[in-house]
């Protein structure tokens, strides 16, 4: 009894310590966003809270336009990635060939290439196709960027589905479309949802491509943050305010969807 109590206590303390350590930078950022610029360069905890930084950020940039871009691009990129990945993962999981394994590994290996390695060709491609600084362009890039991970995750979820269930469906008269829609989708919905959520988060946080391929009209929140950094020196309060506003939506979103996310990510392990 006492043994399990101390054990639980230790686990609780450890858990909280790790959580606080991980959370501290975010906490500090949020704290700093409420300081004046002079307080912001100190590590003082006692300060007069002010919304000045937020006011200036709002005055200088159109937050809502950036946020809308982020939403459209992240959702668009994730939906597009899923639209391609679902059939791909279906065929790899249920109709594998000798090259399936190799194709999967090759897809994953593309994630090891540093994005900057293909920046110039992609920039040039975007320029000739007039995709620079367009939402369509970023949606395309984000979908491609996440495709390997999305395919891999879906593949592992689909692998868990017994073949015979789909075969029973085929005997019942299901064509490929009905098989996926009536059987595979409902059976793997937690997995598909968590894959989509992860893709959404990855898109939201992506900075390299958005900084390089957008300037104003399609710029998402990562660009918004960047616009408050270096050029005019270090304005920590404004930078923190901008960052807080940029991460807040995805943090809140993540908070509400965490159950779904954890359930999906541990789907295979629990079964």
């Amino acid at each position, binding site marked *: 009894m006492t043994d399990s109590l101390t054990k639980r206590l230790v686990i609780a303390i450890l858990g909280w310590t790790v959580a606080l350590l991980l959370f501290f930078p975010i906490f500090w950022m949020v704290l700093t966003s409420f300081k004046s610029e002079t307080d912001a360069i100190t590590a003082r905890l006692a300060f007069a809270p002010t919304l000045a930084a937020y006011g200036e950020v709002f005055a200088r940039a159109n937050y809502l336009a950036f946020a809308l871009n982020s939403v459209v691009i992240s959702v668009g990129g994730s939906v597009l990635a899923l639209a391609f990945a679902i059939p791909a993962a279906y065929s790899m999981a249920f109709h594998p060939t000798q090259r399936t394994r190799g194709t999967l590994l090759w897809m994953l290996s593309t994630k090891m290439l540093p994005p900057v390695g293909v920046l110039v060709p992609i920039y040039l491609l975007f320029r000739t196709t007039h995709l620079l600084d367009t939402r369509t362009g970023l949606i395309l890039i984000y979908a491609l960027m996440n495709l390997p991970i999305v395919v891999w995750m879906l593949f592992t979820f689909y692998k868990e589905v*017994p073949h*015979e*269930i789909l*075969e*029973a*469906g*085929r*005997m*019942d*008269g*299901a064509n490929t479309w*009905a098989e996926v829609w*009536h*059987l595979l989708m*409902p*059976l793997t919905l937690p997995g598909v949802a968590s894959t989509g959520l992860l893709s959404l988060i990855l898109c939201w946080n992506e900075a390299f491509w958005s900084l390089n391929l957008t300037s104003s009209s399609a710029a998402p929140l990562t660009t918004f943050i960047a616009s408050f950094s270096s050029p005019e020196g270090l304005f920590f309060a404004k930078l923190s305010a901008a960052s807080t506003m940029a991460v807040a939506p995805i943090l809140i979103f993540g908070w509400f969807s965490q159950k779904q996310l954890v359930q999906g990510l541990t789907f295979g392990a629990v079964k």
Partner: protein
Amino acid sequence: MATLTLRNIKKAYGAAEVIKGIDLDIEDREFVVFVGPSGCGKSTLLRMIAGLEPITSGDLSIDGKRVNEVGPADRGLAMVFQSYALYPHMTVAQNMGFALRLAKVPKAERDAKVAEAARILQLGPYLERRPKDLSGGQRQRVAIGRAIVRAPKVFLFDEPLSNLDAALRGQTRIEIAKLHEELAVTMIYVTHDQIEAMTLADKIVVLQAGRIEQVGSPLELYHHPANIFVAGFIGSPRMNMLPVAVDGVSAAGVSVRLPSGVALTIPCSGAGLSAGSALTLGIRPEALRPDENGPIAGTVKLVERLGGLTLLHVETEGIEDMIVQLEGLSLVDLHQQVRFSADGAALHLFDQAGQALPALARHSLVA
């Protein structure tokens, strides 16, 4: 109405040929059972008939129409899987009605058909449950119900009872037999189980390594096995095999000499046999009777008393473990010397290639 014709059906996975040319005719309303050792290709053959596995070569016809390229749903067959393969996210009623829903059958008609199948299988109280809330036997019935609802021309079963416990297996076996009677459809059934094969089948197909060893009624296979493999496979406990040598051939049959030196005459045709050539004698455990003057003598090594039956494991010349099955409770003791005799008609002779020598007379129950 559904007859099936298989002509030189083959299946290869890459270079490995697993079905090596199957020719088979299945009559309307026949109950056909595929048996054979694990890995012999029973499931593969069934899945090719179902349309779940492409046929590498040969022709499969249903009612005279070649269906090699027809999709599974359009062949008019229904399959019951070993794992049941129920749709976990649907209720029992939805599971059974899924095929009709896909076929866009109006809801009222669909519900009526599901209710009818539920009545036949006594699934009424469970219609709104999900498969995970059912027992194994109930899941099995839902799987059968899903097949019934489609009113298929042919039912395919792949070891449908192997996940049930012994009591339930017996009960469900009888239900399947009744269902065959009631629905009057063609059924093809894969099993490992001797009793299922013997009791359900009109026609048993014995497979080995992708080939048919013999096709026939259960009693035909039991009384007139075509070769050593079928003789050993059908019947439980297994047929005892003794090496023997030919003494001579007469109108009464083939005379052979047992390893112990005793001579026996078996009513088989011995055309082409010469004295001295080696044969194998097959004796069913249930054909042996204790007999003080019997030709076969041995020492009892083990006694298994099953209540209604007694199994003796006897060491005799030429065979270390000859099994003798006796009716009732036998009082034979361990290490006792016993002599046995057997009815000549229940003995089988096989040549060196393993083929049975044809019996002079057919068993009275086998036309």
